[in-house]
């Protein structure tokens, strides 16, 4: 069980591909910083490999004006939830 942190926009699709190669069935993906844009419905293809096991950091989505625009299957977590995810998952890996 692994938590993957991602901070780049879907423009970096080579990065999303590399992450998908390492992503396991029990893993979770947290979108932070510019990766929030991957949670827009138009970017759904960039998250297809992660099968709904995706959250987005609410404060980063909010500052970007994205609240209310996000895909339904991406969960919102606040900074406390970010910390909680890192506590729940024994390992974290940051992709950038």
């Amino acid at each position: 069980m692994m938590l993957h942190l991602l901070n780049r926009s879907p423009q970096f699709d080579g990065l999303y591909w590399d992450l998908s190669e390492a992503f396991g069935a029990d893993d979770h993906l947290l979108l932070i910083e510019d990766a929030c844009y991957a949670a827009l419905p138009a970017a759904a293809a960039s998250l297809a490999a992660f099968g709904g096991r995706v959250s987005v950091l609410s404060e980063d989505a909010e500052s970007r004006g994205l609240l209310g625009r996000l895909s339904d299957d991406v969960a919102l977590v606040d900074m406390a939830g970010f910390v909680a995810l890192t506590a729940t998952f024994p390992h974290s890996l940051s992709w950038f």
Partner: protein
Amino acid sequence: MQDDEAALAADTPIAPLDLLVILRHPPHGSSWLREGVDVALVAAAFGQSVGLLFQGDGVFALVEGQRAGPLGQKGTHAQLAMLEMYDIERLWVSASALRARGLTPADLMLPVQLLEADALERLVHAQPHTLLF
């Protein structure tokens, strides 16, 4: 918010400006956009005619409803809201960049002119000075 949503027609002449700034980076995640707009504002304050072209993730800078981030990260929306005060009124957006991100001019905080690839190429080639951020 739009006074002109139409794409630039193929035969519309494009007047050269003193400076075109192309903005390709998304806001908030880095300071590229902010420091690019700073150059535009300073050039305008020096009396130059300045235009902005939003390409790629740069179009996200125009999304309506942005705010300062936690810890007071300023973002760029407040800066962009000042453009008119600096007489920077020519704002162009790559139509393909907007489409690819599922956005329309109605999602944007400022009126812009959409450019298809042909018009975008003509715009860039009409300018004596272009910087990219």
